[in-house]
C-alpha cells in the first residue's frame, strides 16, 4: 500500500501540473479568465508561503501585504528610475522584504510577542508601511506610478497579454510548494512544527525558537516579496494601496481554511475560495455592491466553525479513500 501510494502520487501531481499548463489553451485569448486564473495562482503562492510561518511555525502573520508591497515598490522603482530588469528587481525586492522582516521580526521574537499580539502587530505593520509610502513622495505618493509600456519585452517583464504572467506565477507556485515540501521534511521543519505546537516545550528540548522563527519569516517574506515584483509588472503600476490589510488577512484565512501546515491545503483553498469570490463578484457585484462579500464571509465563517482543521484533512481523507478503492480493484 505504501509503495503503491507513492507510485500514484507522483504521476498524479505531474498530471495536475500538465492540466494547469494546458489550461490557457482552453480559455485561449480570453483575458478575463486568464487574469482570474493568474489571481488564483497568485493567492496560491502567497498562501503557500504563509503556510511556512503560519502553518508550520504557528505564528499568525497578517503582514503579507507589507512584503508584497515592498517587493512591488522595489521592482517598480528600479524599473522606472534606472531601467533595471524586473527579473533582478524581484530578487532584490525579495531581499528587501527579508531585510524588513528581520528588522521587525528580531525585536518581536526577542521580546516574546506571541499569538494575538503578534497577529495584531503584523497587521499594524501593513498600515504603517502603506501610510509611510503615501507620505514618502519621492517613491510612493498618492498617485499611481506607471511602469513603462511594452508590447512584449522579456527584459522589462511587460506584456500586452496576461499569458506569460500565468506561466511565471505557475512556476513560482511550483517553487513555493517544493520549498514548503522540502522544509517540512527538514530539521528546520520539525523544529517549526514543534514550536508551533508548544513553544515552551520546544525550547526546553533545545530548539532555538527565535532563530527558527526568524528563518521561517525570512523565507516567507522572500517568496511574498518576489511575488510582489511580478504583481507590479502584471498590473503595470505601483501604488501604496498595494500594502493591503484585507489582502493580508485573506492570505492568512486561505492558509487556515486550507489546513495549517498541510502542503497542498492553501492551494486548494485558494482555488476554491478565490473562484467562489470572483464568481460571486462577477454575478452579484453588478447589482449590489458588497453582496458578494456578504456571501463570501458567510462561507468563511461556516468553514471556520464546522471545519476548524481546515479543508486539507478532508481532502486527504477523500484521496485516501479513492486510493483504497483503486487498490482493491
Amino acid at each position, binding site marked *: 500500500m505504501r509503495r503503491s501510494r507513492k507510485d500514484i502520487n507522483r504521476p498524479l501531481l505531474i498530471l495536475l501540473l500538465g492540466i494547469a499548463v494546458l489550461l490557457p489553451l482552453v480559455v485561449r485569448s480570453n483575458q478575463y479568465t486568464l487574469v482570474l486564473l493568474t489571481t488564483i495562482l497568485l493567492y496560491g503562492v502567497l498562501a503557500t508561503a504563509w503556510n511556512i510561518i503560519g502553518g508550520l511555525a504557528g505564528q499568525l502573520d497578517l503582514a503579507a501585504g507589507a512584503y508584497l508591497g515592498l517587493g512591488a515598490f522595489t521592482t517598480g522603482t528600479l524599473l522606472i528610475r534606472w531601467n533595471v530588469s524586473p527579473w533582478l528587481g524581484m530578487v532584490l525586492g525579495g531581499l528587501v522584504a527579508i531585510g524588513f522582516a528581520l528588522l521587525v521580526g528580531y525585536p518581536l521574537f526577542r521580546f516574546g510577542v506571541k499569538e494575538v499580539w503578534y497577529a495584531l502587530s503584523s497587521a499594524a505593520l501593513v498600515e504603517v508601511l502603506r501610510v509611510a509610502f503615501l507620505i514618502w513622495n519621492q517613491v510612493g505618493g498618492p498617485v499611481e506610478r506607471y511602469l513603462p509600456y511594452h508590447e512584449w519585452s522579456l527584459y522589462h517583464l511587460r506584456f500586452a497579454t496576461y499569458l506569460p504572467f500565468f506561466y511565471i506565477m505557475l512556476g513560482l507556485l511550483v517553487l513555493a510548494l517544493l520549498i514548503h515540501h522540502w522544509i517540512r521534511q527538514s530539521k528546520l521543519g520539525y523544529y517549526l512544527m514543534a514550536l508551533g505546537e508548544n513553544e515552551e516545550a520546544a525550547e526546553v528540548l533545545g530548539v532555538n525558537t527565535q532563530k527558527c522563527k526568524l528563518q521561517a519569516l525570512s523565507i516567507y517574506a522572500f517568496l511574498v516579496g518576489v511575488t510582489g515584483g511580478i504583481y507590479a509588472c502584471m498590473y503595470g503600476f505601483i501604488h501604496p494601496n498595494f500594502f493591503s490589510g484585507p489582502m493580508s488577512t485573506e492570505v492568512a484565512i486561505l492558509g487556515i481554511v486550507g489546513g495549517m501546515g498541510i502542503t497542498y491545503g492553501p492551494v486548494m483553498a485558494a482555488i476554491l475560495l478565490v473562484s467562489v469570490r470572483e464568481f460571486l463578484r462577477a454575478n452579484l457585484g453588478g447589482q449590489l*455592491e*458588497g453582496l458578494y*462579500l456578504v456571501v463570501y464571509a458567510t462561507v468563511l465563517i461556516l468553514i471556520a466553525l464546522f471545519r476548524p482543521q481546515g479543508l486539507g484533512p478532508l481532502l486527504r481523507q477523500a484521496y485516501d479513500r479513492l486510493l483504497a478503492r483503486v487498490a482493491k480493484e
Partner: protein
Amino acid sequence: MTETFLQNLINGALTGCIYALIALGLSLIFGVMNVVNFAHGDFVMLSMYLTFWIGVWAGMDAFITPLITFPALFLIGLLAYNALIDRTLRQKYVTQIAVTVGLMTFLRALAQLIWKAQPRALPYSLIQGSIQIGPYTILASRLVSAVVSVLAIAGVYLFLSRTWAGRAIRAASDDLDAASLLGIPYRQTYALAFGLGSALTAIAGGLLMTFQQVDPTMGVRFGLLSWCVLAMAGLGSIPGLLISGIIVGAAEAIGMSFWDPRARSLIVYLLFILVLWLRPRGLFGRK
C-alpha cells in the same frame, strides 16, 4: 507653537476618552473569556450607522440615540456570542480569529450593501458652541462626549464591583474553574460580558457621530485602535484604560498637526508596536 501643541493635546485627549470606552468593551471580551475579537471595531461602525439611521429617520440627536442603540447592540452581541463565539471557545485562537475575521468582513460588506461606500454624517448636534479658556477653544460637543465616556466607564466600573453579575464576570475572568465551583454559570457570564462589551460601542458610536462621519472601512481603524489602547493599558485596570485612551488620542492629534494629516494611523500603530516590544504587559496591566 506651544499653543497649537496644547490645543491639539486637549482635543486629542477628549477624543481619547471615547477610545478608552471602546477599548473597555474589548477588554471585557478579551479579558474575561480570552476571545480574540477582530470584529470589535466593526461593532463601532455598525453603531455609528445605526445612529445615523435613527438620526435621519427620527430626527433624534446623536447624544440620545444610545438609548435605542445600546439595547440593540447588546442583543446583537448576545446573538454573535451564541451563534459564533460560544462554538469557538474550546478551539485554538487561530480558529477564533478566522471566525471573527469572517464576522468583520460580513459586517463591513453588509454596511456597504445597505449604506453604500460614501461617507455618511449627521447634521450638527443639539449641543453647539464652544468654551474659551485663555487662548484655547474647547468644542462643547467634544467636551460632552468626553464627559459621557468617562461617566459610562465609571458606570461599568461600578457594575463590575458592586453588582452580583459584575462580580461574576470578574470572578470568571480571574479563575474560571473556581468560579464554576462557586456556581457561577460560565455561559451566561460570557454572554453577558460579550453583550455588554458590544453594547458599549453603541455609546461610543453615538458620541463619535456628533463630530465625524462614518464609512464602511471605519471598522478596521477602530478595531486596531482599540487593540492598541488595550495593549498599552494591559488587562485588568480600568483607570489604566482611560489614561491609555487619552495618550493614544493625544498622540494622534499632535502627530496629525505637527507631522502630516495622513500620518494619523501611522502614529497609533507605531506606538502600538513600541508598546508590544518594550512592555508586553501594558503600562498598567496586572496579568
